[in-house]
């Protein structure tokens, strides 16, 4: 039996740990300002509205639309090379935050900007990974 290439494990930076902790429980969370409540973009060290530093996290529905995408047709990574062609996208959550993710469950040729999508969690040896699939019905 040969080793099947595994999806690379998440290596979250310190500030991203709450996001991945929630993802391990099949939940999508977004950062917001503990002072003024403004929902921040991922990775911001402080609030762009009031400049306060405390970042809190809140669960949001895992629904949104594709803001933009690409179809990757070549990869040097052993795992992803086996999945080409695959779709990488920036999804804008209905909560107003954009994140980088992958689109699954759709023929790459059918993916469009503004397509409604919802989160799904791919189970891997290192925990669930949030990806998105077309939202139907």
């Amino acid at each position, binding site marked *: 039996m040969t080793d099947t290439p595994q999806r690379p494990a*998440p290596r979250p*930076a310190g*500030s991203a740990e709450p996001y991945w902790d929630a993802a391990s429980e099949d939940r999508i969370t977004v950062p917001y300002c503990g002072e003024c409540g403004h929902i921040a973009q991922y990775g911001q060290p402080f609030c762009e509205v009031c400049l306060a530093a405390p970042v809190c996290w809140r669960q949001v529905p895992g629904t949104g639309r594709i803001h933009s995408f*690409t179809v990757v047709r070549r990869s040097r990574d052993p795992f*992803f090379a086996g999945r080409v062609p695959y779709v990488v996208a920036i999804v804008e959550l209905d909560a107003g935050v954009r994140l*980088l993710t*992958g689109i699954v469950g759709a023929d790459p040729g059918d993916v469009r900007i503004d397509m409604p999508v919802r989160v799904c969690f791919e189970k891997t040896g290192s925990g669930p990974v949030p990806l998105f699939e077309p939202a139907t019905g």
Partner: protein
Amino acid sequence: MPGWFRRTSTVCWWPNGGYAMAAMRHAHEYGSTAAQRARVVVDQRLNALGVVPGVDAGLTVEDVLASSLVCDPFHSLEIVRPVTGAAAFVVAGAPGRHPRVRVAGAGERTDHAGIAQARSLSTSNIVHTAVAAFTQAGIRPAGIDVLEVYDCYTITVLPALEDAGFCAKGSVGPFVAEHDLTWCGDLPVNTNGGQLNTGQAGYAGGATHLVQAVRQLRGTAAHQVPDCATAFVHGNGGTLTHECSLVLTREDA
């Protein structure tokens, strides 16, 4: 935190994917096409012909569109190739042996860390950096003789022409089709062939644009733009993250 998502297991996409998504979004919002993007490579190939070692044949738009899709919407000829190389320039206060080139204006801006956090994928921060450079120089885009614009992918050139004010926002597709971007054309862009035809020598890639602008202003370029007195130089780092614009002038201009 540029690697906030990239370092994760979600996707494997960098760096082609970020620029590809910017190209997708520009096409979605403004209708820019693959053939219009291809014009950048085709015109710059003519600039490289006979100057860049190994570049001995022209390209057509059809050639670019027939090259393999790597990362939609990019064909392989729209993507810079890595090479080894170096570029250098000297900033000096005192007159040297060579004709002097003046930094007449400069603008710089850093925005998002990761491309997903960019305020816009179709409008770059060049809208800020170019205004700063042009204002400081007291020169308008119409007064520029040559453009040397960062071109790791075709898409970095198109919105740059819009955002720096050389054409109206959203009009760059028809604009590049109607104008001649070669060194002997009416809007010379990347007159040494650009990185798309010479390759990207790591971080030296951006400096090659500056070196070429200085050569044009000194009148020593291989493909010399006649009576070249003003240049617009633009560099981009990260994934449309860091933008830097310069307006250079010939000392006697």
